[in-house]
């Protein structure tokens, strides 16, 4: 699972700046190909990382996991060695003096039981005042021990292990639980190995050599009765099915040892009794040392698995990955970029001297642009005196437009300084058809004759307020024709009529 966590975290880092659409397309394809289901998110993420893991990340992940496993293996070996070493020291026997069982009970029974206390504190969130502080202190101690353990590793291994368990402060909160459980489960594995090492050493020694066990004390209150009470209490779990591993009071009395002089045993002693303690000691080590640690190792493994799953499913961005893997990839947007119009640079401003507009004019109503007040506005706003009125554009055939252009040229011939006014609807776009007509008109009337495109605002019809944007749009289109005698003006007959004296 750690491999998946690390791989997913690294991949999410790489995907951070990639376009959302690309990620959705990629992940949905994986989701469909691998038939992932939202009901099995871990399986889905494993399938995903199989497909998308970067080679470099794969290698890094592998190294990190190997480092972590190596660390775990070292803990196992160290546990065995230390366990066997402790047993060798406690059960050291060269035949000169028997082994004192009391240090053995203290080391392999009482101490392990004592060491279970902080573990219970860590695992059980009891609502007792001060309990939380105690847990935090232990967590801090655990973190300190972890840091110390990391120091033992080389720089390279340290970095790899840290990368496997959480990458930097940004993810510290997320990985804290995982680190705790990895540390906890590793510690339990170590403890199991320690006890196994010690038990195996004892059993090995029992099998291949003769050992003598006694008990000694200087304290007066440690009497044979009390030692027997202790051993009887400790033997409770197995006394019914393994009575030979339960020392009797007589045996306890008989195996008390005094070192003075050559050394002597208690009343009723029999050297044969000295070897019988081993079964009690072995059972004590199994029941009070190994068994609790096997249980805590099992709890640690479960906790670690849960923490791994929790961490994996709560990595920032994992929700999005699962969503992309398991949900339809619905897209409605364009796939190709939009073509941009080329900028039409005006060669000059399309205008003529306003004064030159004054005088007689021929009016062409384009596409039935008309208003009762238009004539008044043309005269008052532009100084045009409309002498002849023609119509072209929509509603007529193209050939008619040609004839109108000819008619305009003929009408101008009879005027002095005559102008052409083309009345258009400002709210309708300046289509190429209108531009074609203006071009044809210029050809017919020749250069230097002023043509003014008069854009009739919609407001003239009393319906809507059409803003200057429409007129400006006509001006831009006409400017692109490159006609220096072409002008565009907007008129508002409605306003002009209101202002009429």
């Amino acid at each position, binding site marked *: 699972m750690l491999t998946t966590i690390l791989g997913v975290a690294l991949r999410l880092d790489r995907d951070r700046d990639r376009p*959302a659409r690309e990620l959705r397309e990629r992940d*949905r*394809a994986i989701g*469909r190909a691998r038939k992932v289901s939202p009901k099995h998110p871990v399986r889905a993420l494993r399938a995903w990382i199989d497909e998308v893991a970067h080679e470099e990340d794969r290698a890094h992940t592998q190294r990190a996991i190997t480092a972590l496993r190596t660390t775990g293996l070292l803990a196992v070996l160290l546990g065995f060695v230390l366990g066997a070493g402790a047993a060798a020291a406690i059960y050291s026997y060269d035949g000169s003096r028997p082994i004192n069982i009391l240090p053995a009970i203290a080391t392999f029974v009482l101490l392990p039981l004592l060491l279970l206390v902080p573990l219970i504190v860590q695992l059980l969130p009891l609502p007792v005042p001060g309990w939380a502080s105690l847990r935090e202190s232990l967590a801090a101690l655990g973190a300190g021990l972890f840091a110390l353990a990391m120091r033992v590793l080389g720089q390279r291994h340290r970095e790899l292990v840290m990368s496997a368990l959480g990458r930097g402060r940004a993810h510290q*909160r*997320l990985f*804290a639980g995982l680190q705790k459980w990895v540390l906890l489960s590793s510690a339990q594995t170590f403890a199991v190995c320690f006890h196994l090492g010690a038990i195996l050493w004892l059993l090995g020694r029992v099998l291949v050599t003769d050992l003598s066990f006694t008990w000694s004390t200087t304290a007066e209150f440690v009497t044979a009765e009390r030692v027997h009470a202790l051993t009887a209490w400790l033997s409770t779990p197995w006394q019914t099915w393994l009575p030979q591993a339960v020392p009797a009071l007589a045996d306890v009395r008989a195996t008390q040892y005094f070192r003075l002089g050559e050394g002597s045993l208690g009343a009723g002693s029999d050297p044969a009794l000295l070897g019988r303690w081993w079964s009690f000691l072995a059972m004590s080590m199994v029941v009070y040392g190994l068994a609790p640690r096997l249980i805590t190792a099992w709890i640690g493994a479960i906790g670690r698995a849960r923490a791994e799953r*929790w961490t994996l499913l*709560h990595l920032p961005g994992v*929700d999005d990955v699962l*969503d992309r893997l398991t*949900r*339809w*990839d*619905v*897209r*409605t*947007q*364009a*796939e*190709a970029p*939009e*073509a*941009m*119009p080329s900028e039409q640079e005006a060669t000059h401003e399309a205008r003529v001297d306003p004064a030159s507009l004054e005088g007689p004019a021929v009016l062409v109503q384009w*596409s*039935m642009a008309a208003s009762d007040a238009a004539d008044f506005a043309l005269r008052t706003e532009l100084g045009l005196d409309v002498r002849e009125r023609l119509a072209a*554009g*929509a*509603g007529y*055939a*193209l050939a008619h437009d040609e004839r109108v252009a000819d008619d305009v040229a003929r009408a101008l011939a009879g005027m002095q300084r005559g102008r052409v006014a083309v009345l258009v*609807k400002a*709210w*309708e*776009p*300046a*289509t*190429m*058809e209108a531009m*074609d007509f203006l071009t044809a008109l210029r050809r017919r009337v020749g250069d230097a004759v002023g043509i003014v495109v008069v854009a009739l605002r*919609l407001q003239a*019809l009393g*319906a*809507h307020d059409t803003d200057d*944007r429409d007129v400006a*749009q006509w001006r*831009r289109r006409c400017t692109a024709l490159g006609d220096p005698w072409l002008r565009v003006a907007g008129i508002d007959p409605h306003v002009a009529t209101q202002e009429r004296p």
Partner: protein
Amino acid sequence: MSAPVFVVVGHPNKGKSSIVSTLAHDDSVRVAPDPGTTIAARAFPMRVDGEILYSLVDTPGFQRARAALQWMQEHETTAAEHAAVVRAFVREHRGGTHFHDECELLAPIVEGGGVLYVVDGSKPYGPEYEPEMEILRWTGRPSMALVNPIGGDAHVRTWEDALSQYFRIVRVLDAHQAVFDQQLDLLRAFGQMHQDWRAPMDRAVGVLARDRERRVRRAAERIAELLADMLTLSVARNIGADAAVEEHKAELEARFQDELRALEQKARRDVEALYDHHDLQRVEDVSALRQDLFSAEVWHLFGRSKWRLAVIGASGGAITGGVLDASIGGLAFGVLTGLGAAAGAALGWQAAEWSSSFQVFNLPGMEKVGLSGRRLQCGPTRNPNLPFVALGRARHHHRLVASRAHARRDPLVVDTEEAGALNPLEAAEERAFHASFTRLRKAGAMTDAALRERDALADRVHALFQRDGA
């Protein structure tokens, strides 16, 4: 059977791109008041896992409709050959410049697309539209007319009368105001254009509706995440053992508020992206949405009122005092109950205003190793109003974003009064949110309990969004 294609055509600058932008949820489409903004046909396929259910095609407007129609009439033999003549027109002129726009818009139609003819209902009907409608009739393809009242509906009626002479189906849709359900209605109507298109369009509408539900849910989750982050946010700095705490409070509080604002801004961007608003402009100076998270106006607009908090506080205080009274056998004659109520009311009144929560941690012995001796922390806030303010603002922002058409290019503007009208939560909702916020505060960050509570909060926010009509 190939997926239906709907070719959006019409006069230049009549809102074709707006319609496409709204229906395709694509805010990258250039929508400009100038004609000629669209110069080439552009497809917007609706894909589900790669499979195309339908396509919209945005096209340039007719530029030389009369000339094109004249060409077709000159090549006409019988009415049965009209479609073939249009195809011949496209074949003849494609690649040239004179009828470039006509070929761009007619090509996808003659290749099998349906016609969506778009007009502006705010502008009067005129004879310049008739040649292009005639050309579209000649194509013989299934068609629908769409009146898009860009600047008002003054001429919609006239348009409907005129269009019904050329098109069997005439619909009205304001591309700038159309909410999601209206968009789905229109897409469903596309299916009525041709019997073979009904099933794929019904399926597409179903998929879009479910996809929308997913987005609403994701938005609710994002808001829940924001609220949880705000409730557990804290900033801290080390200060010297002898430093005056008050001197550092203002700076730390400013940092705390900055981080809260940053969290909110990030969540807003995420919610906008969820609804495919990638280029949404937000101006942060006028409307309620743009109000600062800590302005008094917004605080009282979205949060619970001073009086309400005072009453809640008084109730709590009275209960506590009552218990104490009862425990001493009524010897205080109800004085403790009264005192409790008064103290609770005062606390509630005070809680309605913005206040930070500061804590100082002593770090004994740190000076000896050259480190500061105390740590000053601002937050997590204990103010009961903050999550309600943040929720109100997020809900308001969500409502605006979820209902915003993609054709709109104006900045997001929020009406203060409208925002206020959204504010009230039902009593049961408010209690549930309050309980949820309390549990989130207690759970802290990134714990199983916090994440479970966040999911529960997302459910509540989701229900709220559904009530808002998202």
